[in-house]
């Protein structure tokens, strides 16, 4: 105790100081510590809530993102399938049209050949008819104007003689 007195530390001062600081702490504790603690607790709660809600939001967001990704992938797959189906249908349609065009072309070619043949036959027939007419005219002309009269007269008698037989 004397050593403490030497350095100027009074025991009663210490006790007073202790009582003083004790009262100070008590008062601070009563008036400050609780509210601060309360505030800090509430802030902590708030921060924890916020963190929890942030975690919830994050998990929800992740779930949503997962859903969206899934939906996007599903749509993409559907679109791919539709695209494939459409391409297949277009290809089939193209093949059908090609086949029809080929058929049409064959038919037209055949019709054209038939028409050409018919026209050729008609022209041949016309030419033959014309030739026959010309031959007939020539014969008529020769028999009418270039046969001697006695031959014509004789033909009547010969015709009757032939008829008698």
């Amino acid at each position: 105790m004397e050593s403490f007195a030497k350095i100027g530390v009074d025991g009663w001062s210490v006790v007073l100081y202790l009582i003083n600081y004790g009262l100070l702490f008590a008062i601070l504790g009563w008036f400050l510590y609780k509210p601060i603690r309360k505030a800090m607790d509430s802030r902590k709660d708030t921060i924890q809530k916020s963190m929890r809600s942030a975690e919830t939001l994050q998990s929800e967001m992740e779930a949503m993102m997962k859903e969206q990704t899934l939906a996007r992938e599903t749509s993409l797959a559907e679109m791919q399938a539709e695209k494939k189906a459409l391409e297949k249908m277009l290809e089939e349609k193209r093949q059908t049209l090609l086949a029809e065009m080929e058929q049409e072309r064959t038919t037209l070619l055949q019709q054209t050949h038939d028409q050409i043949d018919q026209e050729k036959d008609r022209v041949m027939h016309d030419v033959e008819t014309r030739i026959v007419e010309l031959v007939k005219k020539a014969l008529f002309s020769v028999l009418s104007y270039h046969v001697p009269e006695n031959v014509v007269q004789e033909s009547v008698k010969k015709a009757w003689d032939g008829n008698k037989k």
Partner: protein
Amino acid sequence: MITRLFLSYIVDEAKKLSHAEQVAMMLEFRSSLQFLSKRKKEIKNDALLQKFASVLRVKVIPVFDQFPLSFFSLPLGEKQSVLKEKIPQNSSLDSSLAHILSFFTAEEIQKQFSRFLNMFADVPKKLFVKSVRDIDSSTRADIRSRYQDSFVVFKVEKNLLGGMQIYNQGKLSDATWKGKVDALSRSLSK
């Protein structure tokens, strides 16, 4: 025309008969004179008309055949001078025939003969002979003798070119050059 010839025939026949025979003939003639209005059956059974028909065939038609179809295109004066030479006209029948040959065409004469003679047939017969030139009298007589049951009508058609055609009861016998040319052109067309 036929009536005129018939009357001429009666006159000629009457000249050969006695008075009594003439009277009998006139009685028969009176009923025959209306032959054109009679029914066919009665004409066929009329003895006087049958006799006249055979006179027509034997005497009149051969005289008609002596004249070519070109004769009928001659002027009247020329025709009459030719007829005076060829037909003696000793009888009424000859005179009537000369008159008919002067004033009627060959077609009209043949038509009347054909119509009259067909009245004696069971079935009227049509027989036409078409030739490119006129047929001479001997060939005509030959043709008529071949077709005794019909009266042959002769026609000239120059467009036949040669030969002759015979149309008999719906059948055509074509021995003309035109027919041969037509047959040739038909065979070439096939």
